[in-house]
C-alpha cells in the first residue's frame, strides 16, 4: 500500500527544529521539539513532532515500519539524531506461525501495538521517512470504510505471543496531544492550508456503492486511489522534470483510452446512475462533487500550495472525478482486482507511458472531464469511437506540444505531474523507467521502445508476483473472489484491446505515427501476462484416498520407531554436543550478536539432528519468553543446483521473495549490513558446507562475513563431514572468518548405538538384548553410522516376521535374524556372483588368472586371455567357443564389474583386469570344481 522511492535514493536532509533543551546532563543529550526533514533540491519541508505517527525505513520498501514518535534527542555535537519510538507492527511482521492466532482475516491497513521488549525503541532519526495517520479503532467496532488509504488502524496489541485488545489508554496520550483524528502532517510549516480533517469523514460515507460495470471501467482509477496513500511524500521526494514532461504524452494517450472506453453512452449513463443510486444518503450531484472536491483538495493541497496554482483548477478536477471515484469503494477483499487491472492496462500502454501508467489513471481525472464532459457530452452523444476521439485529440494537442518543445513547466503541467507521481504502488517502476528511458516518446526508436517495454513488463510481472504473494498472506479466504476478478480482467482487457485497436487505426489515418509506434510493440508482452505459466503453483504431493495404516503388531511398531525418519523424544548420547551448541546459539541470541560455528563428523552421527533439537529447545525457550525471538533458516548444499543458489534460498526463506542469485546477494548484503531497528537474530544452518565451494569462494566468504557485521545479528552454523575442511579447501580470508569455534561429532561407540536403539524402541519389547548388542558392535566397528544401525534393526524385524509361520506369532528378534540381516547388508556379493555365473564365464575368470600368472602382471589383453580360455576349455572337455562368444562372455563379466574392461571398440586388444582379488575368485570357483 505505501511505497517509497527508496530505490531512488533521494537524499533527505534532517534538521532539528525548535529550541534544544537538555534532556540528560550526564550523557549530554539534548531533546528537541521537532525535526524538519526535506528532500535535497526541494524547498518543501516536513516537520515531525513527538506524538506523531511516523514511518521508518525498514527492510521492505513497500511496507516501512510504523511507530509513534515519543521523543527526539541528539548529542552535543548535533551530529547524531536519535528518536525514541513506540513500535507498531504490521501483520506481515508477525511470525508466520503466529499469524493464525489473529483468528480473522486482517484488515489490510491494520497494525498492532507492539508490547514486546525485543525491539530496540531507540532509532536513528534519519531513518524516519515521514508521517502517517494511525487511528485507534475500539475492539467491537468494525473498521471504517477504506476511503483514505493512508490511514492505518490499530485495534489489537501484540506481545510476541498473542493478540490482545489494545488498552485505549495507551493510545490516549496521543489523542491528547493531537486532535482526535490526527490532522494530516503539515507540509509547509509556514502556511498551512485549510486542511479540513472533518471533511474526510463524510467522504467515506458519501461514496456510492459501485455498480460492477462501473467498477470494472473505473478499475484503474479506483486502483490509483486505492494505492495512493501517503502520496504527498512522493510528491515531495520524487518530483522530477523527467516525469513531468513524460507525463503529457502519456496523459493524452490515457485520455484517449479512457475516452474510447467511455464513449458508449450506456457506460457513461451507468456511471452517473451509480452516483445517483448511492445508498443511504441522497444528495444532489453538487453535494457529491463538493465532498469529493474536499477530499481531492486535501490530497492535492500540497501540490496546489507549492505551485500556487488556483484552487479552482483543482476543483475542476475534483468535480469531474466523481464517476470514477466510485471505484474506490471496492471492498477490501477485492482490492486485488483493481491492482491486476492496472497491470493489464499498463501493458497495453506505450513503453514510456507505461512507466507513468500509474498517473495516467490519475490523468483520467483531469482529462476525461475536459474531453468527455465538456466536449463529448456537450457536442452530443458520440456515434462511434472515431468521433469520440476527435474532440479529445484537439484537447490533447497543445499538451503534446509541450513535450516536443520541452518548455519549462507551466503551472498546470506541474500540477498534473505532481498528481501523477502521487501514485505510489508503481511509482518505483515509473521512476526506474524514467531513469533508463528518455522521457520523450517521440525521440525513441521503436527498437529501444520494445526493449524498455519488455523491461518494464518484466518488472511489473515481478511486482505482480510479489503482490499476489502478499495479498495471499493477508487474505486467506479471498480465493473465491480471485477467480471472478481474473475473468473480469480478461473481459475488460479484451474490450479495451479492441478499443485501442480502433484507436490505432483512427490515428494512423491522421498520420500520428508516433502514437501507434509507441503502442504496437507492447502487444506482445501483454500476452505474456496472461496466466499461462503456473506462477503461483503450490508444491504438494496429492494426498491419498485411504489413510495410511497404523502399525498393527509389536514388530511393526518397532519398525516404525526404528525408521530414521521418526523423530525421537530426545537425542541420547549427544548431550555434550547439544549443550555446547545450545550455549553458543543462546548466548548469541541473547546478546544480539553474530557468530559462526563449524561442526564436522562422518555421516550418520547426528549433526543435523542435534542442531534441530537445539533449535527446537531454543524456540521453546523463546516462546516461554526466556530469550528473545529469533528466526531459524536452513539451507543444504546438496539441495541446491549451484552454490550461488544459497543466496536465493536464504532470501526466500527470510522474506519470501523470489529473485535471481545476484540480486539476492545484494539484498542480503544490504539486509545484514544496514542497521534496522526491530531486527531479530537469524540462525542460519548451512548443511553440507563443502558443496558451497566455488573457485572464488565468495559464497562462503559472504556467509562467514555477514555475522561479523555489526548490525547483522546472524548466527551461522555450518556442517560438513571432514574435520579439516576449513584448512583444506578454504582460502585464508574465508577460514579466518569462520573462526575457531569448531566441534566434531565422533562416530558412535557400540554402547551409544545400543542406547540409541533402546531409547527409540522405548519399552517396545521386540529385540533380544544380545541381538541389539551384536548389531551395535558390528556397526560401531565398521562406521559408527546410526542410520546403518537402525536400518539393520529394521531389516532384522522383517526377517523375523517372515521366518515366523504366522505374522502374529512372531516372537522377539533373535540373534539369527540379526545375523542374517548383517549378512545381507555387509557381505560382498562378488563371491555369490561368481558362483552363480555360467560355466564359460567361470572358465574365463580362470583363464584371466592363468594369463596373469603367466605374464606376471595384473593386466592382459582379451586376445591373450582367450588363448588361455581355449586351452582350458579343451582341458575341461568343452567345445571351444568362438571369438564373438568369448567377447560376449567377457562383456557380461565386465558389466557386473567382476572384470574391468577397456572400451569395447578395441575389440580383441582391450585390456582386462580383475575387480576382485585372485584369491576370492579361486575360493569362489573351488567348490564348483569339486
Amino acid at each position, binding site marked *: 500500500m505505501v511505497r517509497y522511492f527508496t530505490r531512488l535514493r533521494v537524499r533527505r536532509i534532517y534538521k532539528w527544529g525548535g529550541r534544544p533543551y537538555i534532556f540528560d546532563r550526564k550523557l549530554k543529550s539534548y531533546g528537541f521539539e521537532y525535526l524538519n526533514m526535506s528532500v535535497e533540491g526541494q524547498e518543501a519541508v516536513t516537520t515531525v513532532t513527538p506524538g506523531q505517527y511516523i514511518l521508518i525505513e525498514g527492510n521492505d520498501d513497500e511496507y516501512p515500519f510504523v511507530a509513534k514518535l515519543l521523543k527526539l534527542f541528539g548529542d552535543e555535537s548535533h551530529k547524531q539524531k536519535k528518536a525514541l519510538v513506540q513500535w507498531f507492527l504490521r501483520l506481515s511482521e508477525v511470525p508466520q506461525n503466529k499469524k493464525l492466532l489473529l483468528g480473522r482475516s486482517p484488515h489490510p491497513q491494520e497494525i498492532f501495538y507492539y508490547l514486546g521488549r525485543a525491539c530496540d525503541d531507540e532509532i536513528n532519526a534519519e531513518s524516519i521517512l515521514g508521517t502517517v495517520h494511525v487511528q485507534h479503532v475500539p475492539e467491537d467496532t468494525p473498521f471504517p470504510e477504506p476511503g483514505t488509504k493512508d490511514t492505518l488502524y490499530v485495534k489489537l496489541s501484540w506481545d510476541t505471543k498473542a493478540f490482545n485488545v489494545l488498552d485505549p489508554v495507551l493510545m490516549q496520550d496521543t489523542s491528547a496531544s493531537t486532535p482526535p483524528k490526527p490532522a494530516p502532517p503539515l507540509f509547509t510549516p509556514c502556511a498551512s492550508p485549510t486542511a479540513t480533517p472533518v471533511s474526510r469523514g463524510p467522504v467515506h460515507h458519501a461514496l456510492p456503492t459501485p455498480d460492477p460495470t462501473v467498477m470494472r471501467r473505473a478499475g484503474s482509477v479506483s486502483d490509483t486511489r486505492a494505492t495512493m496513500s501517503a502520496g504527498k511524500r512522493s510528491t515531495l521526494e520524487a518530483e522530477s522534470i523527467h516525469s513531468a514532461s513524460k507525463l503529457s504524452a502519456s496523459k493524452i494517450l490515457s485520455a484517449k483510452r479512457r475516452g474510447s472506453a467511455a464513449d458508449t453512452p450506456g457506460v457513461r449513463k451507468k456511471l452517473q446512475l451509480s452516483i445517483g443510486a448511492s445508498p443511504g444518503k441522497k444528495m444532489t450531484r453538487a453535494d457529491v462533487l463538493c465532498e469529493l472536491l474536499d477530499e481531492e483538495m486535501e490530497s492535492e493541497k500540497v501540490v496546489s500550495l507549492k505551485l500556487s496554482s488556483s484552487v479552482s483548477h483543482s476543483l475542476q478536477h475534483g468535480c469531474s472525478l466523481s464517476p470514477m471515484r466510485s471505484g474506490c469503494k471496492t471492498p477490501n477483499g477485492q482490492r486485488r482486482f483493481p491492482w491486476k487491472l492496472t497491470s493489464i492496462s499498463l501493458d497495453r500502454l506505450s513503453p514510456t507511458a507505461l512507466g507513468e501508467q500509474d498517473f495516467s489513471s490519475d490523468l483520467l481525472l483531469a482529462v476525461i472531464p475536459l474531453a468527455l464532459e465538456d466536449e463529448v457530452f456537450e457536442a452530443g452523444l458520440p456515434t462511434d469511437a472515431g468521433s469520440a476521439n476527435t474532440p479529445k485529440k484537439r484537447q490533447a494537442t497543445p499538451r503534446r506540444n509541450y513535450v516536443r518543445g520541452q518548455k519549462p513547466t507551466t503551472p498546470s503541467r506541474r500540477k498534473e505531474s505532481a498528481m501523477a507521481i502521487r501514485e505510489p504502488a508503481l511509482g518505483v517502476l515509473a521512476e526506474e523507467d524514467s531513469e533508463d528511458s528518455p522521457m520523450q516518446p517521440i525521440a525513441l526508436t521503436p527498437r529501444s521502445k520494445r526493449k524498455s517495454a519488455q523491461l518494464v513488463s518484466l518488472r511489473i510481472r515481478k511486482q505482480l508476483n510479489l503482490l499476489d504473494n502478499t495479498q495471499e498472506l493477508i487474505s486467506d479466504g479471498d480465493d473465491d473472489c480471485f477467480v471472478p476478478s481474473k475473468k473480469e480482467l480478461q473481459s475488460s482487457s479484451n474490450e479495451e484491446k479492441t478499443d485501442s485497436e480502433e484507436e490505432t487505426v483512427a490515428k494512423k489515418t491522421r498520420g500520428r505515427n508516433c502514437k501507434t509506434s509507441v503502442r504496437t510493440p507492447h502487444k506482445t508482452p501483454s500476452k505474456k501476462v496472461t496466466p499461462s*505459466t503456473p506462477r503461483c503453483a503450490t*508444491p504438494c504431493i496429492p494426498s491419498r484416498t485411504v*489413510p495410511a495404516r497404523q502399525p498393527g503388531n509389536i514388530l511393526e511398531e518397532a519398525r516404525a520407531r526404528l525408521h530414521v525418519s521418526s523423530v525421537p523424544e530426545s537425542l541420547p548420547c549427544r548431550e555434550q554436543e547439544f549443550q555446547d551448541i545450545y550455549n553458543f546459539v543462546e548466548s548469541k541470541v541473547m546478546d544480539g550478536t553474530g557468530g559462526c560455528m563449524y561442526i564436522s563428523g562422518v555421516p550418520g552421527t547426528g549433526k543435523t539432528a542435534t542442531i534441530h533439537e537445539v533449535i527446537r529447545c531454543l524456540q521453546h525457550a523463546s516462546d516461554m519468553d526466556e530469550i528473545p525471538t529469533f528466526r531459524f533458516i536452513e539451507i543444504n548444499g546438496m539441495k541446491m543446483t549451484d552454490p550461488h543458489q544459497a543466496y536465493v534460498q536464504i532470501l526466500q526463506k527470510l522474506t519470501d521473495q523470489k529473485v535471481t542469485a545476484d540480486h539476492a546477494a545484494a539484498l542480503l548484503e544490504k539486509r545484514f549490513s544496514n542497521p534496522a531497528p526491530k531486527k531479530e537474530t537469524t540462525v542460519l544452518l548451512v548443511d553440507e558446507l563443502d*558443496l558451497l565451494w566455488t573457485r572464488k569462494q565468495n559464497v562462503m566468504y559472504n556467509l562467514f562475513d555477514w555475522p561479523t557485521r555489526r548490525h547483522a545479528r546472524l548466527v551461522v552454523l555450518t556442517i560438513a563431514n571432514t574435520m579439516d575442511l576449513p584448512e583444506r579447501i578454504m582460502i585464508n580470508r574465508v577460514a579466518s572468518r569462520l573462526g575457531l569455534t569448531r566441534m566434531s561429532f565422533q562416530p558412535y561407540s557400540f554402547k551409544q548405538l545400543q542406547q540409541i536403539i533402546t531409547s527409540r524402541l522405548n519399552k517396545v519389547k521386540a529385540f533380544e538384548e544380545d541381538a541389539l548388542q551384536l548389531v551395535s558392535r558390528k556397526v560401531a566397528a565398521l562406521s559408527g553410522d546410526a542410520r546403518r544401525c537402525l536400518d539393520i534393526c529394521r531389516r532384522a524385524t522383517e526377517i523375523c516376521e517372515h521366518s515366523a509361520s504366522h505374522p502374529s506369532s512372531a516372537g522377539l528378534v533373535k540373534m539369527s535374524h540379526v545375523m542374517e540381516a548383517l549378512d545381507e*547388508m555387509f557381505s560382498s556379493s562378488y563371491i*555369490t556372483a561368481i558362483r552363480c555365473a555360467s560355466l564359460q564365464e567361470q572358465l574365463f575368470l580362470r583363464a584371466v588368472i592363468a594369463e596373469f600368472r603367466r605374464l606376471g602382471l595384473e593386466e592382459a589383453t582379451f586376445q591373450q586371455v582367450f588363448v588361455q580360455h581355449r586351452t582350458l576349455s579343451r582341458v575341461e572337455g568343452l567345445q571351444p567357443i568362438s571369438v564373438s562368444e568369448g567377447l560376449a562372455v567377457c562383456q557380461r563379466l565386465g558389466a557386473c564389474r567382476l572384470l574391468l574392461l577397456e572400451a569395447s571398440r578395441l575389440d580383441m586388444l582391450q585390456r582386462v583386469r580383475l575387480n576382485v582379488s585372485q584369491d576370492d575368485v579361486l575360493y569362489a570357483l573351488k567348490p564348483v570344481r569339486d
Partner: protein
Amino acid sequence: MSKRKVKETHMPVGECISQVQMILRERFCHQRLPEKPVGMESQHKHLLELLRRTAVHGESNSVLIVGPRGSGKTMLLNCVLRELLEVKDVNKNVLPVHLNGLLQTDDRIALKEITRQLNLENVVGDKVFGSFAENLAFLLEALKKGDRSSSRPVLFILDEFDLFAHHKNQTLLYNLLDVSQSAQAPVAVIGLTCRLDVLELLEKRVKSRFSHRQIHLLSSLSFIQYLDNVRSQLSLPQDFPDTKFYDEWNDSIKTLCEDQLVVDVLQSHYNSSKDFRSLHLLLMLALSRVSASKPAIKPTDLLEASRVCMVDSKANILHGLSILELCLIIAMKHLNDIYEGEPFNFQMVHNEFKKFLQRKSHSIHNFDKPVVIKAFEHLQQLELIKSMDSSTAKIQKEYQLMKLLLDHSQIMEALQKYPQCPTDVKQWAMSAFG
C-alpha cells in the same frame, strides 16, 4: 464337452500355427509378464513386502535390485508392481515414477521428468516450467510438505541406477534418499542395476542415507531346471482354443526336449549364459521355422538356430573379402607369427605378399601397389586391422603401425569355408613361416 468346443477343435492348422506363433512370440519378446517370476521367489516376496509397506503404511524405503543383464530385474519389479496395484486400496494411492539412467542423463532432465510424471502444479500439459533450481526447490518443497499418513507414496524407479551416480554431486540421489530417511512424503527409491559395485559409486553422504538393502538376482539355475524352463516356455497354455493341436504341440515339445541333439545344444547355451534373454533369442529363431507344412519344432531347427546365434561375426566378414585382401590377411598372420604380435605396417605386409607371389604363387599375378593399398585400406575400414597410434596424420599411410584384430583360428576357419579358395593360398596360410 460343449458343441462349440468340439467345433473349435477343428481349427485349420494354419490358424493354429499363427496362434502358437503369437502366443510364444509375446512370451519371447517380453511383451507379457510371466504369471510368476521363476527362480526368484524369496526376492519377489522381499520386494513385494517392502513396496507394500510403503504403499499401505507410508513407510519410506530404499532398495537396490542388483543382477547381471538379462537376469530379470525389470521383470521382477514389474511383476511386483502389477501385484501391488491389484490390491484395491493401494491402486489409487501410489504414484510410480519411472526414470532411466540412459534417458535422464543429468539431474536437470531427471527433475523435469519426475515433475512431469508426478504432475505437480508447475506442469502445464507436457511442459515443466521453471529453471533447474526452481524445479529442484519446488519438488523438494512438495515432498517436504507431505507427511507419512496423508500424502500418497511415491515410488521412484531408477533404471540403470549406476548412471545416476555419475550425475554432478549426486544431487538427485542425495535428495531422494534424504527424503526416504526423513519425515516427509513417503517414498520408495528402487534402483535397478547390473553393477555389483554400485555402492562404491555412491558418495559417502548419499551412501549413508541409503538403507543398504540389496536384492541380488543371481540365478543358481541347474541344467535340469533350465531344461524344464525351456519346456514350459515352449508349451502352450491350457486355454489354447484347439485342444487337439494343443496336445500334439505339447507332446512334440516334450519329445523335443528329450532329444540328445537338443540337449547338447541347450547345454552349450547353458554353459555360455544362464539368462533367459539369450534363451529366448534361440527359441525365437527356432519358432520362426515353424510353418503350416511343418507344424512342430524339430531338433534340427534348434541346431540351426543355435548355429545362427553362435556364429562368429568376423568369420562372416572374411567370407566376403577378395582374394587379394585375404592374401594380405594371411601375410599379416605370418607377420604376427614371426614378430609375436608386434604391430606391422603396410610396407611389411606388402613385402610379405610379394615374397609369396615370387616364390609360391601360381594362380595369382602381381598387383600394382596402389591396388594393394586400396585393399589394405578396405581392411582397415572393416576394422579387421586397427591403427595403433591415434595421430594418423603425421605418419605416411604405408608406415602406420597396425594390428590385426583376428584370431588365427578365425582366419583358418574362414579359409576352409571360403568359396573357391586357390590351393596355393591355402597352403601358404597353413605353412609355418611365410
